[in-house]
Every structure is written in structure tokens, then in C-alpha cells.
């Protein structure tokens, strides 16, 4: 094979290396700079993360505060009334019902009903129907 490229001359060796590496670089071109460059896009891409974390934390704080501090007084009192009513009902249904102090009965106020009751104004029953 007639191949004068690889002799003992540095310049020839250098040329062979240069040509080969240049051929490699042509065969494997560099990716576009913006594809590899992490500079400007990165902070903008991830900017929503702190905002999201802040929003979630704020929501959690508001929810916990509402549960322990912000509940209306009527709502927190309701279990207390229910306990008193249960106690009174138990005492009245016992054989010693007559021992229940009258003051307690007078002072008792039943908690308001939460269920909707039908209004009597909505009923129109004729006399015939009422007799049947």
C-alpha cells in the first residue's frame, strides 16, 4: 500500500492526526449551544416551584388556624350542649327521674335542630280527605 503519511516526520504525523480528528468532528457535530447551555432558561423554568411551595404552606397555615382558633363560638359550644342534653335525658329516663332538679330542667335549652322540617303551610288537606 502506498501510504506516505506515516513516516518519521512530525509534521506528517500531525497532519494525519488533524485530518482524522477533523473527520471525527464532522461526523459528530456539536449539539446546538442552547440545548446544552443551562444559563438563562434554568431559573425561569423553575421559578414556579418556590411560589407553589409558598402557596401550599400558606394554605396549610390558614387551615390549621381556622380549625383551632377561628371557629365561631356557636360551633364550638354545640358539643357542650349535646353533652348536657344527653346527661339530662339519662337522668330523666332513670327510675329516680323525680330527683332531677327543676332548675336544671328550666335552665336547659335544647340545641337548635339542624334538619329542615316540613312547614304546615305547605299542606292543603280537604275536609273529605281528612275524614278518610
Amino acid at each position, binding site marked *: *500500500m502506498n*501510504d506516505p*503519511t*506515516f513516516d*518519521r516526520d*512530525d509534521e506528517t*504525523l*500531525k497532519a*494525519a*492526526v*488533524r*485530518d*482524522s*480528528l*477533523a*473527520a*471525527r*468532528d*464532522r*461526523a*459528530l*457535530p*456539536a*449539539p446546538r*449551544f442552547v440545548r*446544552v*447551555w*443551562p*444559563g438563562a432558561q*434554568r431559573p425561569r423554568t423553575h421559578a414556579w416551584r418556590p411560589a407553589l411551595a409558598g402557596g401550599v404552606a400558606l394554605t396549610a397555615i390558614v387551615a390549621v388556624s381556622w380549625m383551632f382558633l377561628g371557629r365561631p363560638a356557636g360551633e364550638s359550644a354545640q358539643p357542650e350542649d349535646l353533652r348536657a342534653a344527653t346527661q339530662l335525658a339519662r337522668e330523666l329516663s332513670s327510675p329516680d327521674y323525680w330527683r332531677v332538679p327543676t332548675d336544671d330542667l328550666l335552665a336547659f335549652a335544647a340545641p337548635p335542630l339542624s334538619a329542615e322540617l316540613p312547614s304546615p303551610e305547605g299542606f292543603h288537606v280537604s275536609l273529605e280527605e281528612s275524614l278518610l
Partner: protein
Amino acid sequence: MLDGPRLRHNPLIDQHELERLHEQCFSWALTCTRGRRNEAEDILQMSYLAVVEGAARFGGQSSLRTWLFSVIRNHARSRWRHARRSLQTLARIASFAPNAAPFTEPGVPAENARVLDALRALPKRQHEVLDLVFYRDLSIAEAAGILGISLGTARMHYERGKTALRDRLADMRSAP
């Protein structure tokens, strides 16, 4: 000449200048990874990230190109060490010797591929010194700076690399 936006953590670096050096950086990353394109891209990206975040600081003592080459080379070396450790562990477990598969770039003429094979067969430092001096027109002193070795050591790798490359190419030529 600085004419573009400066990097926040590396104020001496102009982004447009980096962009101009991008192809050379990728080519050097290819050499550091022995022609593995995906690895070269990863290493280049890691190097750029280090530059953007200021983990690697350019002090202006050398040219930006040689400094970038040394950053890329350091990333390639640490990655290569990590990969080698993993491979050695795997080899111990599976009881086989690590053996790099022959690698050829598609689309490279046969004669050039032969030289590339001979270059890759050289010890890593010899390969890198020859690449920097022959292909990128750097001095042996600059190559020594990039590789983090003394001038005397770089000169030794250069001389031995040339001799070894000539011998390998002669062997290839004489082989059937």
C-alpha cells in the same frame, strides 16, 4: 473582546465568547470521552453548569479556551473514575474482566478511522496531549496546564505519544 452579557457568578466570562467556543469545547469533550457522543454532551452540560453557578471560577490567568478545556477535562476525569469504580465492582461480582468494545464513528473515512483507533489505543494522557498540541495548536505548556501536570511530564507524554502512535500506525499498515 467582551461584548455580550457577563455571567453573574463568573463576571470575567462573556456568554457570546462561550458560544463561539462551544464547538471546540464539544470536540475536546469528545476526545476526553474517547468519542462517545452522549457522554461528551453530558460532560459539556455539567461543565457549563459549573461555569454558570460559579463552582468553577475563571480568574483570567489563562485564555478562556484553555480554562474551559481544563474544566471539561476535570469533569470527564471524575466521571471516568466513578464509571471505572462501578465497572470494577461489577466485574468482581460477575467475575469477568472489563473489556471496552471497539468503537468506530459512523461516516469517518477508513484511513481517518485507523488513525483515530490508534489514538484511542494510546494511554489517556498521551492521547490528550497529542490532541491538544496537534489538533488545537496549543503549546505543550498550555496542554500541561489543562491536564494539571508539570511541563516535563507533558513533554514526556508528548514524545512517548508520538513514538507510540507512529509504531501503531506502522503496525496497522503492515497488518493484512
